[in-house]
């Protein structure tokens, strides 16, 4: 028998994990952001469960700082697949809980998402939330299990993780706790793109090159000008051909200069890229060495 390609192996692993979620939990949910990783998850769910319906709704925690293209894509996808989409807004959480909205020049709501996420988990009593996080993204993520148990407060305790052996996933929890499940833990950014190419998966247009007006920050990042960012006189505004490597909160996600029109172009660019995905695009992880670990402990993905 000829040896299988590693993409087949990664795909089989992810489908196996998705089916374990369906088999072990009463009220799972798939966290869908409109980004490439969660789009791949939806594609994998089709392979895992069709011709049946998904055994979970798609849930989006909307920061209100999203790229319009991602939102349109999200709504179309849910409609086209005839699957349930639940959207909850960070804006509503801020009002209801009288939270302090993001401040400063780039007022990110990335940290505030956690509140809305924990609320939606409570509202629907979700016992498992499937997410598209990958271990190659960040070093705290590199430590996390595929079935990652969170306590009633949504917190991650990195020193008390359950052993996770072979392909045996222990999803047993007490009421009020939940499990975060990461089926594509073992995929790298390049694997995701190779998979998108192989499976011919469609993506929101912001992943491909387009001309955009940006603020060129002091450390060389290209930040989108939008209604949430506070423009100042001294800002250097440039027009560049850019694309996005991740689709997050617009205020803290930087664009990268690119001439990639197709998925193939992106793969070529990534092979030559010298900067990591989060390093290139996320301002929020630059705060400290343990920024991600700390956010995860509070309930973030």
């Amino acid at each position, binding site marked *: 028998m000829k040896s299988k390609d590693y993409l087949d192996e990664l795909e089989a692993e992810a489908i*196996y994990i998705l089916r374990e979620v369906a088999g072990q939990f009463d009220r799972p949910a798939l966290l869908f952001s409109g980004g490439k990783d969660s789009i791949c998850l939806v594609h994998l769910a089709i392979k895992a469960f069709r011709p049946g319906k998904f055994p979970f709704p798609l849930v989006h925690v909307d920061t209100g700082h999203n790229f319009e293209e991602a939102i349109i894509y999200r709504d179309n996808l849910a409609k086209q697949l005839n699957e349930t989409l639940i959207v909850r807004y960070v804006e509503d959480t801020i009002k209801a809980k009288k939270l302090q909205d993001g401040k400063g020049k780039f007022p990110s709501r990335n940290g505030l998402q956690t509140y809305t996420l924990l609320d939606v988990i409570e509202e629907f009593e979700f016992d498992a939330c499937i997410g598209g996080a990958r271990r190659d993204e960040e070093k705290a993520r590199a430590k996390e299990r595929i079935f990652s148990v969170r306590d009633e407060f949504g917190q991650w305790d990195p020193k008390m993780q359950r052993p996770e052996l072979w392909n045996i996933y222990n999803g*047993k929890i007490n009421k009020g706790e939940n499990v975060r499940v990461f089926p594509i833990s073992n995929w790298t950014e390049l694997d995701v793109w190779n998979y998108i190419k192989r499976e011919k998966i469609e993506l929101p247009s912001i992943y491909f090159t387009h001309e955009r007006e940006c603020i060129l920050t002091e450390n060389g990042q290209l930040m989108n000008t939008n209604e949430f960012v506070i423009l100042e006189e001294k800002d250097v505004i440039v027009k560049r051909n850019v694309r996005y490597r991740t689709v997050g909160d617009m205020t803290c996600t930087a664009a990268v200069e690119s001439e990639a029109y197709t998925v193939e172009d992106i793969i070529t660019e990534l092979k030559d890229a010298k900067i990591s995905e989060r390093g290139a695009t996320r301002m929020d992880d630059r705060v400290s060495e343990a920024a991600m670990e700390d956010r995860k402990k509070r309930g973030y993905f």
Partner: protein
Amino acid sequence: MELLRFFTAGNVDDGKSTLIGRLLYDSNSISTDIIETLTRQSKTTGINTDIDLALLTDGLRAEREQGITIDVAYKYFSTDKRKFIIADTPGHIQYTRNMFTGASNANLAIILVDARNGITDQTKRHTIISAILGIPHVLVCINKMDLVDYSEQNYKQIEADYLTFAKQLTLKNISFVPASALAGDNVVNKSKKMPWYNGKPLLEFLETIEITKTTQTDISRFQVQYVIRPQTDELHDYRGFAGRVVSGSYKKGQRVTVLPSGIETTIDKIEVNQQEVEVAETNTPVVLHIKDDVDISRGNSIVPTKHLPKTEKEVTATICWMDNAAYIPGQKILLQQNSFRTKAIVKQVISKIDIHSFTQLESDGAMKLNDICKVLIKTAEPISFDSYTDNRNSGSFILINENTNNTVAAGTID
């Protein structure tokens, strides 16, 4: 391109994290922003004038503070030849359970030995765990050769000592490489300082070693994960059993038996991604349909009638106890084998294995953290299994505490 999963075992003191850092660094797998961060951090810790490659893998705050690895970290890199997943596992005895986690899916073990110290208790423990988990390849990396003047005699002595120890174990393929992770000798590039060594540098081993199947048999195994029943008008009678072909292959028209019920039936249809196929090979996610209207649910096995696994309510197994709370035989517990879960009790702890000498000790009855024991387990429902040596998948299980829900033991069936 093929995928090789391997794990590294050894202390930070043996240069384990530095070795991984070296592999990633010399194979150009680290981005410039991460190197910048590391350079900044290395200056803070002040260990090295250069960059401290170990900081690449120790991802938790507590690990960086204490300079040790507590939990498994997964790292990814690829070369032109292969794609690799590294599970960087902790070496300290109190984190043995995390080492099991990282090692359980691996095809190869890299066991680090400090050339100055030779074989230690820890080397023996890591080797025994590799043997219990049936890791197909063990690569002993004799590191810090720079600190023993690249001495061939030194290397030969350690090699001989290791082989003497390993003789009593069941390890199949053992290789040795003399290296210095810090100086970059024989990791990615062949060292000029050890002309007496004719073998491959470490990376070349990883690129060329044959990826052995973790199941030794081609006998077909399948367990139901989830039943797909759309219950729509046009798919009113659709009832498909979703799962993964664990080993062997399944064919349309094949005679199969459903376990534990023992009912015989025939495979009517096999679907892969909604397409009908005639044959489904190992590791393919499939949906099986069967001819007769048989009661089948999650955790049931569908296996070829000609080659049945054992189906019993008692198994003997080797287990590693992983919980801080000790276990007294007779306490109720849950056993999970892939998607099959049943209540169980450990009836008897037959013997304990001394993790440093591999001798069997008389059991005092209880099992404590990191104990490796031969046990007799009784299950409430019959379990269908193969021996772990024959099939890693149908021969392995975990034990779960019913109150805390924690995974408290890992077991391999005799």
